[in-house]
């Protein structure tokens, strides 16, 4: 699991530029899937036909980033955010673009604090416009943040862990469930960071009976933590509600029962501000039974996050057991 997390976090996939990581993920399920494809919005979808109700497992593969919208005569770039990055967390950091170009995010001279993206520019070391245009173009996307580090106590820190961890869990869950003969699809969703824009298209096409979404949720065991009582390392969290969904009680009961049977401590996620794929899927077509199993992180929805591998392992076991139990 850890190897997959690190490998997937090494991929650069700002929202709207998920093509490469989508290929990596679909390659990893090709041997078991009856069908793999990418849809119009960039979702990567694999299906294994089998027994019982069709269950969809979803995890978003995109991460917040920046997109080039202007190149000036001196070779400097201007960017806009894709997803929830703020100007202040983007300033003074290295940016790596999907084509390998790297640069430094700088603040216009005389500005005290970065408040808006139009105060920022990116220096890619180009001496003039022509050189910059050979390495960047309008619409090119990039990300900020460092590669994954192991902290030695079962915790990982780095860029895109939210939600490559979820991708690794969904990938492994799909493999386990497909090998056990279940009718299961896995969807690595695109464009979650700008507001869960793509997940419903995959759910519309697949029409699953149940969908379970794996994503990060912010732990509150930090200075100034909000009152959600989520702790890093204390186990997976069932998504009771966020800004776009309230969980169906039947699925909540099922997941609680499985946690109890597996001896997993279950936490409860109540995240009033998060807009999730779960909510988008739930409201697709005539409504779809949809729920979220989340793993706690320190800083969700940002460039970098910290996770505890014990939570990740328990999330996988709980997910697989819950889907299996739903069949019965």
């Amino acid at each position, binding site marked *: 699991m850890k190897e997959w997390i690190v490998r997937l976090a090494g991929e650069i996939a700002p929202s709207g530029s998920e093509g490469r990581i989508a290929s990596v993920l679909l390659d990893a399920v090709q041997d078991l899937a009856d069908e793999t494809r990418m*849809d119009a919005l960039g979702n990567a979808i694999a299906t294994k036909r089998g027994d019982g109700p069709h269950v969809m497992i979803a995890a978003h593969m995109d991460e917040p980033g920046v997109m080039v919208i202007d190149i000036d005569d001196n070779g400097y770039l201007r960017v806009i955010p*894709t997803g929830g990055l703020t100007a202040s967390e983007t300033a003074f950091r290295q940016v790596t673009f999907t084509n390998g170009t790297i640069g430094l995010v700088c603040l216009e001279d005389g500005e005290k604090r970065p408040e808006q993206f139009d105060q920022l520019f990116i220096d890619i070391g180009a001496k003039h416009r022509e050189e910059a245009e050979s390495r960047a173009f309008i619409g090119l996307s990039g990300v900020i943040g460092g590669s994954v580090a192991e902290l030695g106590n079962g915790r990982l820190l780095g860029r895109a862990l939210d939600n490559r961890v979820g991708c690794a869990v969904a990938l492994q869950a799909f493999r386990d469930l497909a090998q056990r003969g279940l009718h299961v699809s896995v969807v690595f969703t695109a464009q979650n960071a700008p507001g869960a824009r793509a997940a419903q298209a995959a759910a519309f096409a697949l029409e699953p009976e149940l969908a379970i979404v794996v994503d990060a949720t912010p732990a509150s065991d930090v200075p100034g933590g909000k009152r959600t009582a989520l702790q890093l390392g204390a186990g997976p969290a069932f998504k009771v509600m966020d800004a776009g969904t309230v969980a169906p009680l039947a699925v909540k009961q099922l997941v609680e029962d499985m946690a109890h049977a597996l001896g997993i401590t279950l936490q409860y996620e109540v995240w009033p501000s998060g807009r999730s794929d779960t909510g988008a899927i739930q409201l697709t077509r005539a409504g779809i039974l949809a729920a979220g199993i989340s793993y706690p992180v320190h800083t969700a929805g940002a460039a970098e996050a910290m996770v505890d591998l014990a939570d990740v392992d328990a999330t996988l076991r709980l997910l697989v057991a819950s889907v299996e139990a739903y069949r019965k």
Partner: protein
Amino acid sequence: MLLKTLSEAFGPTGFEDEVRNVIRGELEGRVDEMKTDVLGNLIAVKGAAKPGPKVMLDAHMDEVGLMVVQICDGGADAGLLKFRSLGGIDPRVLVSKPVFIGPDRIPGVIGAKPVHLQAPEERQKPIPMEKLYIDIGAKDAADAKSVVKPGDAAVFATRYAEFGERAAKGKSFDDRVGCALLVEAMRSEVPYPLYGAFTVQEEIGLRGARAAAYQIQPDIAIALEGTVCFDVVGAPSHGQSTVLGKGPALTVQDAQTIADRRFAEFMWETAKRHGIPVQWRRVKGGSNDFGAIHRVGKGVVGGSISVPVRYIHAPTQVVSLDDVENAQRLLQAVLKEIAEGSFTL
């Protein structure tokens, strides 16, 4: 001239009938079928049974406007009309502007306290919309109520005119310029099913387009829009969005859409191959109907072709007629290249 007729037509959000009637008249006999759906979208169809990708072209009929919410019947303000905006309007553009209320075009003028009477601090900031009113010259509330009701909508009373070097000024180029492009495009012959969706209620949240896309279920969709242009006084390159006269603009990202890169590049390359000037729209704010369309059903591939509009959402907007012409050329070239298989789904 169609752009003039469309620009001067009365069509604030939710009141698109007059615009729809103009378009219906233009397309009568030139398409296989036209229908108005329950929200008021006009959908024109050509070659529904043909093989090949189902292509949807979109332009919204509505314009930003005002809605009367109250007819004052108190003392000094008796007969004046309180209003709110329909769509995003900067209150700073409203003061002293003439308007027409309703399709019967009851004339009015937006009034405010004159500069002589404003306290020093009032002069420092824009007059908020709540302090503005529409004056229709009524002598009292009963007089006003005999011609206007709460819920009536108003538009700017701006006449279309061509001026300067291939420029035009008028109201509602956002998005009557798109409507004009789409009417013209529906006259073209293509070997695949072509749907023209003239949509309602774009300006308050892309409301009509979603229903239009739902019933059409297109394989490819292109929104035709008027978009932000601020290539004037002191705007740096990255703050302009688009430049007037530099051709139609293609989107990489706006507030509702991250462009399908493959389709955006296909349109860009098509422009280059056909020698049509084209530019990237360089701002995140704002959006168009494609933001709603691409998320419908199992997802829709496509993008938008935008005409730069200076002073967008204001009483008098400015476009370059060259940009309009080049947007039409680009649209025709894109439709032709889709027919030739240059873009594969």
